[in-house]
Structures are given as structure tokens and as C-alpha cells.
């Protein structure tokens, strides 16, 4: 895993205790938006639960030899989903309104290393969308044409602005991919309508 990025911003709800100059005491930590935080933290367990239920429905009617093993896994997964939901709910609702959140209580917050602030999401989302477009159009346009169109788009999304650099980078990248896969590894990549 990448080492923690030193430039990573802390989340809005990150705990920080500051000395209150008026009283000489530590100011209570600013509490995160609990409800939103709670539902965000439930995304993975709930998705896992939906997956388990859908899988269970999908294997209805299968004989025991086929279905036994997945059913055991589904039961285990649903139990873990329930445990995760209960623990998240407990962490949220046991914190009484008049008690300010403290650093210790906030230590159960999901890691803010990759924070989910909207500003952080835009570029990764754009890259993901471009990748999805690449996958959809690759059978039609072929690998190289898709690369010529989409890889520069990724570079632009990431902040490259000089046209000549983008053109040079695309040329080098596409040529390198051709040499590595078609020539060296002898792996043909989809030609698309050009083939």
C-alpha cells in the first residue's frame, strides 16, 4: 500500500483538540455529522448483505450438493453484516448529545486517509468513467484507437494542459503498448473496426 500521503487533507470531522485561550482548557472536539457518517459507514456492510441475499435467492432450487457450501458462506456473511451494523450503531447512538465527542471515541472513525469529500471524488470519478467508456468502446474502436482517444483524456483530467506534451505522451504510450504486447509478448489486442 502507498505510504500515507503527507499532503492528504484531514476530513472535516477529524478530531482536533485546541486549547481554549479563554479558559485555558481543551476545547471539546467538533463532532462529525453523525447521521451522514453513520450511513456512509454502513455502505459496505449493507452492500454485502444485499449481495448475500441476492446470492441466496439465486441458488434457490439448486440441489444440496451445489448449494450447501454457498449457503454456509451466506449465513456467515449475514452474521458478520449484522455484527458490523450493530457495532456502528452502538458507536453512534451510545454517544449522548450532552457529551462532547472525544478523541478516543472518534478513533473508531473510518480512516480519513482517502476521505470522501466531494472535492476529492471528482477526479477519481472522472477517471473511472473514462475507464468504463474505454471498456464499452474498445470492441468497436479497437484497443489502440480507444487508447489514443481516452488516455489523453485521463491526462487532461489529471491536470496536463500542454497539447504537445499530451500528444507526445499518447504517442509514446501507444507505441510502447504495441511493442510490449504485439511484438514482445505476441499478444494481439482488439483491432476493432480497423481489423
Amino acid at each position: 500500500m502507498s505510504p500515507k500521503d503527507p499532503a492528504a487533507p484531514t476530513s472535516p470531522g477529524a478530531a482536533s483538540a485546541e486549547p481554549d485561550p479563554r479558559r485555558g482548557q481543551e476545547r471539546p472536539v467538533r463532532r462529525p455529522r453523525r447521521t451522514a457518517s453513520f450511513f456512509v459507514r454502513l455502505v459496505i456492510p449493507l452492500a454485502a448483505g444485499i449481495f448475500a441475499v441476492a446470492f441466496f435467492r439465486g441458488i434457490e432450487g439448486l440441489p444440496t450438493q451445489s448449494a450447501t457450501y454457498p449457503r454456509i458462506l451466506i449465513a456467515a456473511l449475514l452474521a458478520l453484516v449484522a455484527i458490523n451494523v450493530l457495532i456502528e450503531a452502538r458507536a453512534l447512538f451510545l454517544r449522548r448529545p450532552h457529551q462532547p465527542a472525544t478523541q478516543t471515541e472518534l478513533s473508531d472513525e473510518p480512516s480519513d486517509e482517502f476521505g470522501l469529500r466531494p472535492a476529492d471524488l471528482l477526479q477519481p470519478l472522472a477517471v473511472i468513467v473514462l475507464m468504463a467508456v474505454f471498456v464499452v468502446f474498445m470492441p468497436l474502436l479497437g484497443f489502440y484507437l480507444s487508447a489514443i482517444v481516452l488516455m489523453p483524456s485521463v491526462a487532461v483530467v489529471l491536470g496536463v494542459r500542454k497539447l504537445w506534451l499530451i500528444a507526445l505522451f499518447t504517442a509514446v504510450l501507444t507505441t510502447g503498448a504495441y511493442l510490449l504486447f504485439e511484438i514482445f509478448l505476441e499478444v494481439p489486442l482488439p483491432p476493432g473496426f480497423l481489423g
Partner: protein
Amino acid sequence: MSDILSGLELLAQPESLLWLLIGLCLGFVVGVLPGLGPSTTAALLLPVSVGLPLDSALILIVSMYAGSAFAGAVPAILLNIPGEAGSVVTAMDGYPMAKAGKAELAIGIARMASVAGGVIGGTIVLVLLQPLSSLALQFGRREIFIVAVLGLVVIASLVGDSVRKGLLSGVVGVLIAAMSASPLTGQPRFTLGFLELYGEVPYVPALIGLFALSEMFILSRPAVANPAGEALADAVPRFNLRGMLGQALSGVGETLRRPVAVIRSSLIGLGIGMIPGTGTSIGNFISYSVARRQSKHPETFGKGEPEGVIAAEACDNAVTTGSLVPTLTLGIPGSGTTAILLAALYLQGVAPGPQIMTTNGPEAYAVILAMIVASILILPLGVLLATPLVYFARLPKEYLIPTVLLVCIAGVFSMRNSVFDVGLAVVFGVLGVLMRSLGYPIVPLVMGLVLGPIAEKNFMQALTLGDGDWMYFFQSPTALVLWGLVIVLVGYSVLGRRKPKAPAEMS
């Protein structure tokens, strides 16, 4: 003995040596480059490895692993920014040494300690591999099933900061792996109408998606610039071969003057590496704290003590070697990178596990010997290349990300000429981003994907052997001991959950 000699013969082929050198140099680049860890790189190498002979494919991956284990120390020493998770500990004394003007000496010590750790660990594994495999051969279907469960529980408990999240991730992985035709009846189970899932969930696209694609998606956040890369390249000492050789020799001398520290750290790393899921960062922390406790001058640790660097780096490379043991003998990956090594074995038609010493003994020994040779070559190649290769850290992410994405797409497609696989990789990439953003570790999910088919096959066969009696799984002393270990481990992990956060382990 004959298998060891056959393994040596395989390794001595020019093609194998060439892949060893390529892997080692690639490992140096990976180690210094933020954003590309050994697991991610190993996943990218998978499609390449399919076209190679089995021994070359494995040698390429393990030599990359060995190279990255050392190279991560370079940015850790120069700039207090670990190149890989295990180098966090190296920075604790390496960086103070660099601040005191002893950067090249610190790198020299790290280099020699890495060599020693890899050689000592590899030599012991070479001796132990056959006896351990023979012991593992005693395991029947039920024991192998329980070992698979144990492996998954161990990894889920140790990776990340929460046992419940690790277990959830692991079981999701195992269930995803079950989205295929039943191995007993051939009936499709929740394949969503996709013929491509009939055989098994293609875990190569899943591995590439979870490791490489998710990493690139996360790296594309606006806050993740590469200021460290610029500063790192500025901190690199000027290329001066004579000076570098002099410092390399000083590093060798300083390391060899502390044989007890070297051997102790290597043995700790080897032992820790054999436990699935522990990884280099946990091993290095343990090695470091043992070294400090046993030192006559513990107060010097953290202020530029060479023994601190030795404790971290010798352990680091020994862990990578140790992680090969459960991978080869039991078919249980010792780390994320060895999970990919396992995938490479499957792709080559080799089923890892206790029988591997019988079916592919020379190849298994060639892998260990490659690790030893790669570790030795770290010394000369590390002098010449590791420091200049730091300039790769300057590579802006605007160019790194599209390059890796394109290589991923091409690599995944080339496995089965399947656009479905590419789409699957993107889906897993998105899943990886979501999970990591929300604090769920992805390594247990990967382990679940790899271990799931092993667990199911052995579970169903054991159930058949027991005539459908569930108590069969508890009717041998070995099985009871293994179940006991599972329970103890889960209980210990849950009760001891307020442990200090270890860096999330990906390698």
C-alpha cells in the same frame, strides 16, 4: 537434494537469470516509486508471466519482491517517506542518519542487511521446505480445509485496524469465488447469466482491479500530488561511483560488525513471514523493538543507530522469503504478493499445496534459490542502480496513472481475449476504492478469492469422505488443534482489538 540441484539448473539458464535481473531492477523502481507497491506490480506482471515458462514467471515475481523490499528503504532514509510499508521502521534510524550527513552509509547498511536477511532466510527455507511439505502431506482434506479457514482468519485479523471488517471482507471474497459452477454438479451458481463465470471467477482481473486499478483511482485525487518525488530526487546524493563504492563497503563493514543483530532480525523475519498475513511492517516493528530491548544502549535508537536500520532491513527481506513457505507448502498465501504468486502457479496449471514438492519440486526450489540470488545481487546492483533509480520518484502521477491503466487493460484482456475480464477488473477497481475509502481492507478479500476454491474443494471432499457427517471435521487430533487455533486467534483478535494501528498491509 536432487530437486535442489534441478532447481539450481533451472535458475542457471540464461533466460531465468535475465528475468531475475529484470525483476530485481523492476523491484528497485517499484520500491522507490510511491503509488506502485510490490502487490500492484506483481498483479501487473501476471499477464506477462502467463507467456513465460513456469520457472521464469515465478523468478520474475519473487525477484521483484526482493528488490522492492530493499529499495523502499531509500526514500525512507533520504526523506523519511517509506517506499513500502515495511520501510516505516527503517526511517526511524535511517532518516536521522541522513540528517547527520550519513545518508549513503545508512543506505549501505540497509543494502547489506537486506542481502543478509534474504540469504539467511532463503537458506533456512531451502533446508526446511522438504520437511515442512512432508508434514503438510499428512494433512487430509478436512485439515487442508481448516488450514484455509485458519489462513483467512489470520489474515482478516491482522490486516487493517478492525477484525470484523477484515472478516467481512474475507467472507465476501470467498462468496464471490463461489459465483461459478458447482465443482460437484457443474450447475451454475449465481453467475448472472455470464458464461465467463462458469469456470470460476477470473481472479486475475479481480487482483489487477483490486490492487492496481483501485490504487490508480485513489492516486488520481487532487490532494495526492507528488511533492515527495521532487524533494526525494533533490535529496539523492550526486552520482559518484567511487564514493558510492566506498560507502557501500562501509555499509558492509558496519553490518557485518553486528552479526548477532543480523541473525536475530533475520530469524524473526523468517518466523513472522511464515505466518500468513503478517507482512513486513509487523515483522519490522517486532524486530526493531527486540533489537532496542536487547541493546546495551537503547537510548540511541531513533537517533541514528545503525542497528535500528539493520533490525528493520534484515527482517524485511527475511519476511519476504518466509512468506513463500505457506504459499508453496500449503497453498495458503503468506502475503498479498504471494497471493499473486499463487495465482501465477494456477495460471500455469500447477496446484500449490503439500503435493507441490512431488509434482514441481525443482520449480519450487528454483523460486527459493532465485530469492537468495536476488538478495545477493542487491549488493552490486543496489550500489549502481538503487540511488539513481530514485529519480523515477519524480515521475508525475499525470503520466504514471494513464500508463498503468493502459497496461492493466491490455494485460487483463490478453489473459483470455475477453472484454468481460476488463470490465470485471474495472468493477473490482471501483469496489477496491470504496472499500479502502471506508476502512475495509482488500487483502482479506483477495485471500478469499484465492482460498475460496481451495476451501470449497476440500470441504466437499471431506464431507464426502465423512459420509455427510459434519462431526467428521472434528474427528482428528490435528483437526481439533487447528480449530482450537482458529478460536483462540479470533478470540484474541476480538478481545485485543484496541491494538496500536499498524500500517495497512498490501505486500
